[in-house]
């Protein structure tokens, strides 16, 4: 079947895909699942391949690539279920590598965010006092394995050494094998470096979030695409009533609907990637749209894939279970579709109310050819509500 990328997009994606296929084959993945230790060798090979240098400018010794290449990597990590804080490390490496105290080589980075509100427990918070970082109830993926933790302390965004004795890391249990959730409290750890403060802090926050949303959306695309492929293979090979189940129209139509969803996810990711690369005025909105659409889409594809697989899909022996749980955890990461759709809906209605008051502003029917730059849609001021487990940076 042809669900393929085009041009340079295809080359970058193919390179990432073949690298992972060679260093992280299914056999290695199964082996890894036994103890789930941080995959150090895989990480070193990713570093050697330049993944963490992708977004570092060439003048600073990096590869000077864009969101498109970064997303090609995460689409591949999603497709092959590669564990590790790739999004955090790729997005934050350019800022962290500039700090003199952070070492010159590639480090494992983890961005901490406030742990979601559970019942009456307080939200997490972080602050800086006297050159030291204090924080309670922060959370981060793979914080337990990271070299450096990036803490958003409001006025500034700072880096602390993860191994400092004043950093207390509590790994959490989870059902998605490929993430390692971790709670973090920090009791006066020294600042290794300041990534951004003053006016630069919100700019950094927005840039990080935009990239992280598009990269996570692309990872969801990789996860969903693989589930579609697995379902297709299964439908062709599984026989009942003397025929492959893929020859039954009921199954075919389900697979067709999955294809429609995956293809729409691909288009929206691609457009959001290009917008992010070009720093388009709508890049933030499109990043949100991409995350919302892929979050809902991957969930839908996962549920349909389970139905196509039947009982075998419900066993841990079948890799589908790994993908399904991965889709669920990525759905929550960086805000789920419910939170982002609510934010997007509020912003759409606010824009509509403003234009209704201003009289008849022409509707925007022009965007297929030449994207309109629409001022005033202040989506970045909106945050997904925090009543879900969405991992939003504080």
């Amino acid at each position, binding site marked *: 079947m042809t669900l393929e990328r085009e041009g340079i997009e295809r080359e970058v994606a193919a390179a990432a895909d073949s690298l992972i296929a060679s260093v992280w084959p299914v056999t290695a993945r199964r082996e890894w699942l036994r103890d789930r230790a941080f995959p150090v060798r895989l990480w070193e090979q990713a570093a050697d391949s330049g993944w963490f240098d992708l977004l570092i400018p060439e003048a600073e010794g990096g590869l000077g690539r864009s969101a498109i290449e970064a997303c090609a990597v995460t689409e591949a990590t999603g497709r092959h279920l590669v564990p590790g804080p790739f999004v955090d490390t790729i997005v934050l490496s350019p800022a962290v590598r500039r700090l003199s105290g952070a070492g010159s080589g590639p480090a494992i980075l983890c961005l901490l965010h406030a742990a979601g509100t559970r019942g009456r427990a307080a939200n997490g918070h972080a602050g800086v006092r006297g050159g030291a970082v204090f924080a309670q109830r922060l959370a981060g993926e793979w914080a337990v394995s990271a070299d450096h933790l990036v803490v958003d302390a409001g006025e500034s965004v700072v880096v602390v050494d993860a191994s400092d004795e004043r950093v207390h890391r509590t790994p959490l249990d989870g059902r998605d094998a490929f993430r390692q959730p971790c709670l973090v409290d920090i009791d006066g750890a020294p600042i290794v470096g300041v990534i951004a403060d003053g006016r630069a802090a919100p700019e950094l926050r927005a840039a990080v979030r935009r990239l992280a949303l598009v990269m996570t959306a692309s990872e969801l695309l990789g996860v969903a695409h693989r589930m579609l492929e697995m379902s297709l293979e299964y*439908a062709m090979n599984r026989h009942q009533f003397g025929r492959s189940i893929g020859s039954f129209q009921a199954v075919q139509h389900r697979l067709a609907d999955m294809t429609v969803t995956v293809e*729409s996810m691909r288009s929206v990711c691609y457009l959001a990637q290009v917008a992010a690369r070009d720093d388009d005025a709508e890049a933030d909105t499109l990043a949100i749209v991409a995350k919302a659409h892929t979050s809902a889409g991957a969930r839908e594809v996962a549920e349909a894939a389970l139905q196509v697989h039947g009982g075998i899909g419900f066993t841990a022996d079948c890799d589908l279970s790994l993908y399904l749980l991965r889709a669920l955890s990525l759905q929550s990461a960086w805000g789920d579709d419910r939170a982002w759709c609510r934010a997007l809906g509020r912003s759409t209605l606010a824009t509509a109310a403003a234009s209704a008051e201003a009289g008849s502003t022409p509707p925007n029917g022009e965007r297929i*050819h030449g994207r309109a730059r629409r001022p005033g849609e202040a989506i970045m001021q909106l945050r997904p509500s925090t009543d879900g487990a969405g991992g939003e940076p504080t």
Partner: protein
Amino acid sequence: MDLPATEEQRRFRLDVRAWLTDAVPRHLPQALDERFQALRTWQRTLYDAGWIGWGWPSEYGGRGGSVVEQLVVYQELARARAPMPAGLVALEVVGPTIAHYATPDQGRRFVPPLLRGDEIWSQGFSEPDSGSDLASLSTRAVEDGESFVITGQKVWTSWAQYSQWCAVLARTDPEAKRHDGISYLLVDLSSPGVEVRPLVQLTGDAEFSEIFFDSVRVPRSNLLGALNEGWKVAMATLSFERAPALLRRLTEIRVAFEELTREMCDALSPEDLDLIAERVGRCRVLIEAMEARGYRIVDRIRRGERGPEDSVDKLFLTRTEQAVFALALDVLPDRTAFAPDDALTGRRWLHDYLFSRAASIYGGTSEIQRNIVAGRLLGLGRD
């Protein structure tokens, strides 16, 4: 990414937009007969102003250029909330097929009046017993000297009651395998033996009709393409139709969604608006995602590609359209009765909701589209 618009096309868009500012007819008659006449006049106005005929050969009265310019015009019409020209079936469906398969004589005869709106066209494909299974059609055309004699019945023929011409699929070789014995004929609906009966739809409009053919004579020169190769011509029609129509419809849906959200802000309290914000956001996501598909549709049109990808897009557009207009219906205070002073124009949204339910039926049902995706894109067969 290869953005679909060149600088020239951007300027072209601004020219269309500027022209439309004053030219949009503000008051169209309500009654269908007068309304259709006004839309014919509108098509002639558009043609004379140079906005129709893009992507059509100049020897047939077209303007050269590409279909992208024509799409720009349709998008700007939607944006300006201007009506579409009367002969849309000809411009989007029948006409491109004629221009592609016509002999030079046929092209010079049929294309210019079709572009100007002087002659309105309809398409006679479906029959009472041949809907999704189009190739089972039983309307006969028997060769008799220099004529064909057609007998049979067509249905769901849009705007047949206003059409001079109908593109009819008829069986010319009953002995051949079912796809092989069909021909594509251009039939003058004023011929003796033609009867058109409009059907009133769920929306209350009488957009489509039944057509009865009782020994209707059609000159042999009105055969489009080769004898018994009408199925190939018809399949080309369906793919000509698909992609540009999808893009036009997408623009219409985006415009309608923006109007809907404005009306909702007038009609609903802030609390009610907030309750429905997530659904508004989900519709917005679908529209943006469909627009992202749109970039690829334009690329495919440019490269002249047609195929099962069009079915993926039709299925996704249908999802989008039905979600948007279901939202519109669900915010109406009463879904089928309307107060004159309602801030939400209930009558319009009920109409659009009903029409959106047809999206999964017309132009190939969603089930047929899924068959195409499964069979041709995924390679799943019947075993």
